[in-house]
C-alpha cells in the first residue's frame, strides 16, 4: 500500500470482499463487504451491504444500500433506499430517496427531499427539508427551514432561526385526512421562530410568530410574538 494510486474495488454481479483501502469502491449487483473501507468514492448501485466503517470523500447510494458502521465523508447522497446504522459525520448530506440513519448525524448541511428517519441527534448548520422525517433526538441547527409534506416528528428543536411552513396542496389534498401535514415535537427553542402546522408543548424564543394550524401548550418569548387566529395556543408569556 501507499504506492501512489490505490486500486479500485469493483463488484459487478455477485461478490464479496473484506474491505481495505481503495481509490474507488463500486458495487453493482449484489456486493457485500465485511470490514472497514477507506476510499475516495464509495458508489453503491445495486444491493450493496457494508459491514464496517467508511471513510470516503464521496458516498453515493443509488440502489438499495446498507452500511452498518460509521460514515465519515464529505458528500453523502442517497437516491435510493439506504439504511445507515452508525454515526455520520459529513459536510453535505442529501437524501432524495428513503434513508434510515441509526446514530447521530453531524455536519454542515442536510437536505431532505425524500424520507429520513434519524435515530439519534442531528446537528448541522443548515437543515432544509421538503419531505418527511423523524428524528429521535435533538435537531440542532443554525438555520432550520422545513416545508411540511406529511407528518414529521422530532423530540426537540433548537437553533438560531427556525421556519416551519405547511405547503399548499394540489392533488394531495385528497389524502390530507389520511396524512396530516404537521410536525410534532416537545420543545422548540430558537431566536427567530416562525411556525405553521406545529404541535408542540413548549415554544421559546426571542421573536415568535405562530402561523396557521398550530397547537401549542405554552409560548414564551422575550421580544415579540404574534399568534394567528387559526391556531390554538393555551398560554403565552412574555419573559
Amino acid at each position, binding site marked *: 500500500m501507499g504506492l501512489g494510486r490505490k486500486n479500485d474495488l469493483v463488484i459487478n454481479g455477485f461478490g464479496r470482499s473484506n474491505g481495505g483501502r481503495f481509490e474507488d469502491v463500486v458495487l453493482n449487483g449484489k456486493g457485500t463487504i465485511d470490514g472497514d473501507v477507506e476510499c475516495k468514492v464509495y458508489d453503491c448501485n445495486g444491493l450493496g451491504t457494508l459491514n464496517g466503517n467508511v471513510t470516503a470523500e464521496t458516498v453515493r447510494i443509488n440502489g438499495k444500500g446498507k452500511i452498518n458502521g460509521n460514515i465519515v465523508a464529505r458528500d453523502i447522497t442517497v437516491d435510493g433506499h439506504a439504511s445507515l446504522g452508525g454515526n455520520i459525520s459529513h459536510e453535505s448530506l442529501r437524501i432524495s430517496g428513503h434513508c434510515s440513519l441509526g446514530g447521530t448525524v453531524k455536519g454542515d448541511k442536510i437536505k431532505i427531499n425524500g424520507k429520513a428517519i434519524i435515530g439519534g441527534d442531528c446537528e448541522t448548520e443548515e437543515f432544509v427539508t421538503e419531505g418527511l422525517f423523524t428524528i429521535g433526538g435533538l435537531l440542532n441547527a443554525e438555520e432550520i427551514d422545513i416545508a411540511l409534506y406529511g407528518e414529521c416528528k422530532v423530540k426537540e428543536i*433548537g437553533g438560531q432561526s427556525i421556519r416551519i411552513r405547511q405547503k399548499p396542496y394540489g392533488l394531495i389534498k385528497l389524502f390530507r385526512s389520511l396524512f396530516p401535514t404537521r410536525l410534532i415535537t*416537545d420543545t422548540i427553542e430558537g431566536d427567530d421562530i416562525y411556525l405553521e402546522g406545529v404541535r408542540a408543548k413548549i415554544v421559546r424564543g426571542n421573536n415568535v410568530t405562530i402561523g396557521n394550524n398550530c397547537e401549542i401548550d405554552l409560548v414564551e418569548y422575550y421580544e415579540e410574538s404574534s399568534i394567528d387566529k387559526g391556531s390554538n395556543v393555551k398560554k403565552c408569556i412574555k419573559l
Partner: protein
Amino acid sequence: MSQDLISKKDLLDLTGISYGQLYRWKRKNLIPEEWFIRKSTFTGQETFFPKVKILERIEKIQLMKENLSLDELADVFSPDLTNVSLSYEEILKRRISSKPVMDFFIENIGQLDEFSFEQTLTIYILEKMLQSGNINLDEGRMVLDVLLEHYRKVESKTAELIFIRKLGMSTCFLASNNDELFFEKGTKIIVRLSLASCLEELKSKWT
C-alpha cells in the same frame, strides 16, 4: 453526586446569551454533551446544567471569542492531546514554565530537543505547584513520577491531581473521576488541581 443545577432558561437570563448561541456552542462542542442534564419538571422535560461549570465556561467563551474563532475555541476546550511539540526556548517564551522548573524537569527526565504536549502539561503543572510554594523540589519529583507514570491511564476530562500532607509527611495521587474524597482528620489538602482546567490553560497559552 449532588451539585447545583441551573435550568436553561435561568442560564440565558443570567448570562444574556441567546438560544442560537447556546445551540451553536453545543454544536461546536464548546459545551460538553454530558453537561446537558435532562430532567422532568411540571412543564415537561427540561434541560439543566451544572451551575458552576457552565457559568465558568460561558464566561471563558465570551472572553476568548473576541480573539479566537469558534473552531479554535473548540480546540482549546477539547482535551484531546495535540501532536504538536515545543522546544525548550518556546516553552520559556510562551511563559508556560520558568527556567528553574524547566531545568528541574530536564534534570529528572533527561535532556530533550522537543517536549510533547503531555510533557509540557507535566511541566506546566509542576510550575504551578512549585511556584506557588506549596511543595518543595523533592515533592515535585513525586508529582513528576505520578504524572509520568499514570497520566495516560486517567480520563483527563475529569481527573484531578491531589497533593496532601499530614504531620509533615506528604504524598500525591491522581483521582480519575471527580467522586468525593474523604480524608483522615488532620490531613491537609495542599493542592487539588483539575487536569482539564490545566489543559485549557495550557492550550490557551499554546495558541
